[in-house]
Structures are given as C-alpha cells and as structure tokens.
C-alpha cells in the first residue's frame, strides 16, 4: 500500500515537473518571438519635446476596448476587425521646437532592436531633407507577428509598434475614412483639369 502511494506521488511529481518545464519552455519561446520593442529609451525626450503622444495599449485593454465597438456600424466593425488580431499598440511621438533636440543615439536605441532575423525592413526612405522613414515587419511564414514604424524628421521623432497580425491594407486605408479624418500628413496633388 505504501509503495503504491509512493509510486503515485512520484508520478505526480514527475508530471508536475514536466508540465513546469513545458510551460517555461513555451514562455521562453514566446518571449523570443515577441514583436514588442522597448520604447523606454525615448522617455527622456519628453522633457525637451513641445508635444508628446504616448499610447500604450496592451492585450487586455485591447480586448476590453473591442467590446464597446458597435458591430452594426460599418466603420467601427472594420476597426474592430482590424484590431481583433492585435496584441498591443505602442506609439511614441515627440515633436520638438528646434532641430537637434534628439540625437542619433536615440534612434539607434530603437533600430538596434529591429536588427536581426526576426524583423524585415520593408520600407526605408532616407534623405537629408526629409529625415528617415523605416517600416519593419516581423513575420512567421505568411503570418504577420508585428509591425514597427520609425519616422525621424528634423523636429520630430515617431515610433509605432503594433503587435499581432495586422492587415497593412486595412491599416493604410484607415486614414481619411470612416470617421477618421485625413490628418493631412501627405496631401494629394491636385489634378489639373
């Protein structure tokens, strides 16, 4: 009887240890695959900036928020569908009064996280006049795991980090449609009649 009890206890302990290993392994794998980039290195720029946009939305808030979208409204339904596969959105925009208020090192602290095999740079625009615009995508097979946009102008630095399967078509269509006003960042040229 005693041996049976001991055997059962040993089996349970082994099972618990195995489950712990599996959970830890899954956690390590998930951490390795995460598309989250650390933006805290830019926090010190808030003191110099004339305007700051700071948005941190994790998965729990995204889920909570998605509950209040109205599915009967086409626009909100589209937004809800767009964000349904997302696990987080993190945005930092710093706008400065004069040039040189941020340094290359600030940009480099973000770029260094986007180097490596996990991220692919799909857009890279650089010019002395217009600054840098870089779009990175983290993919696994055909699935998008994350998006990162780094925009650095003369007096502005902006970083957007989206976690999860984002549809870039739908995201790019967002501006100027369904209640989201066109921000006029890039004005369309007028057609000559």
């Amino acid at each position: 009887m005693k041996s049976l009890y001991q055997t059962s206890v040993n089996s349970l302990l082994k099972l618990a240890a195995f489950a712990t290993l599996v959970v830890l392994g899954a956690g390590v794998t998930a951490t390795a695959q995460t598309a989250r980039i650390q933006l805290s290195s830019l926090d010190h720029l808030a003191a110099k900036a004339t305007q700051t946009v700071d948005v941190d939305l994790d998965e729990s808030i995204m889920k909570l928020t998605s509950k209040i979208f109205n599915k009967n409204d086409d626009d909100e339904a589209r937004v809800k569908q767009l964000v349904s596969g997302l696990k987080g959105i993190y945005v930092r925009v710093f706008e400065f009064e004069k040039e040189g208020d941020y340094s290359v090192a600030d940009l480099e602290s973000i770029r260094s996280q986007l180097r490596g095999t996990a991220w692919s740079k799909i857009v890279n625009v650089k010019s002395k006049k217009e600054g840098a615009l870089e779009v990175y995508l983290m993919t696994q097979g055909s699935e998008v795991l994350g998006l990162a946009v780094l925009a650095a102008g003369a007096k502005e630095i902006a970083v957007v980090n989206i976690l999860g399967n984002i549809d870039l078509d739908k995201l790019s269509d967002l501006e100027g449609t369904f209640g989201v006003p066109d921000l006029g960042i890039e004005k369309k040229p007028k057609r000559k009649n």
Partner: protein
Amino acid sequence: MKKPMRNVSDDYLWDQSGEPDPEIQELEQLLGTLRCQPRPLEIPAALQPSRPRFVLRDFKPRLAIAAAIALVVLGAGLWLGLARRERRDTPELVKTAAKPSASDDSRQAAVIVPEDVSHENPNAGNEVLKEPVSVLVERVNRTRRNRPNPTTVAANANRQREIELKTPELAGNELKEAQAGKAHLMLALRVASAKLNLAIKKAQGSTSGNLIHNQHKVG
C-alpha cells in the same frame, strides 16, 4: 502424605513456552471441551424479521448512475444557457465618438503639451510632416467635437445608458476604461496609418503599385 514440590517454571502457564506440566496438560484436556467454539450465530426461523419489500433497493446502482447523468446534463444545460445569455448581452455600444466626455478627455490625457512652449509654427521646415502633431490632434478634436447634433448626442446617451444596464460587467470604471482605451486606440491607429501611408508614398512615389499588397510575400 504430601507430594514433593517440584520447581516448575510458570512459562508454560503464561504462554506455553516452558516445560509442560502433566497436571496442567491433564486439566487442559479436561476443560478444553468447554472452551469457546466460534460458530456463526443461528437465529431461529421464528425469530427472523420479515424482509422489507423495498423494490428500489435492487436498482440502487442504476439509480445512482442515472442521477449522476441527470446532474451532468442539467449542469451542462445551465452552463450553455448562461454562456448564450452572456453572448446575447455582449455590449454593442453605439457610436460614442460624438460624446465629448470620457473619450475626448482621455485623448487629451494622451497628448501632453507643455504650457510654456510656444505653438507658433513649431514645425516649420519639416518636410516629413506637413503639419505638426499638435495641429493634427487639434484638428481631430475639432472634427469630432463639431460632428454631432444634439439629437444624436441624446440618442447615444440613452443607448449608452441601456448598454450600461445590459452589461453589468462593463459598468462603471470598466466602461470608462474601455472608452478611454478606444480613444487611445483610434489615436494610435491614426498615427500608425498616417506614418505607414507616408512611408509607402515616399518609398514608391505616387507611381506604381502598392507595396502593402506584397506584404504576404515577405518571409
């Protein structure tokens, strides 16, 4: 005439381990016939009670199994019913963009503008953004403030109240948190969309195809 006393050990009397005494053995044989003989209790037939005629006793195990199954089915039914009810009561909030209460406040909270900084054309000469973020945010706020008419606001407020009553899980702070999250989400999506569009347009000009249509080819 007295028999001579023998020195006999008491061990045999105690646990039959010592040297046996013939007298003791003789007494054992004589009295052994009177020792207790274990046998089952035999109750005379006349004294036996009549067997109760409990019909269900034979079906006890089956009844227990049936009761267990019924309990499981009942529990599953209750669970499914509650789940369906929760699904039916999932909040479908009306378009609350018109309400300048929590949404706008939270959006304002997300945009930090130092008061001691001049806003007079702070981004002049910036070619990446045609307008500064402050102007853009102000434009967003103005657009959203000017959109609704009072009737729409009142209708939305009524529907909002109904939703709050129908969704107790989102009542109070959670609902406010969700609305604030929605405002932040829309702001984040606007910025992301604008930057993405700008990047695509800068990369490709306004000539050929759309890069984002090739997103699935990456990797």
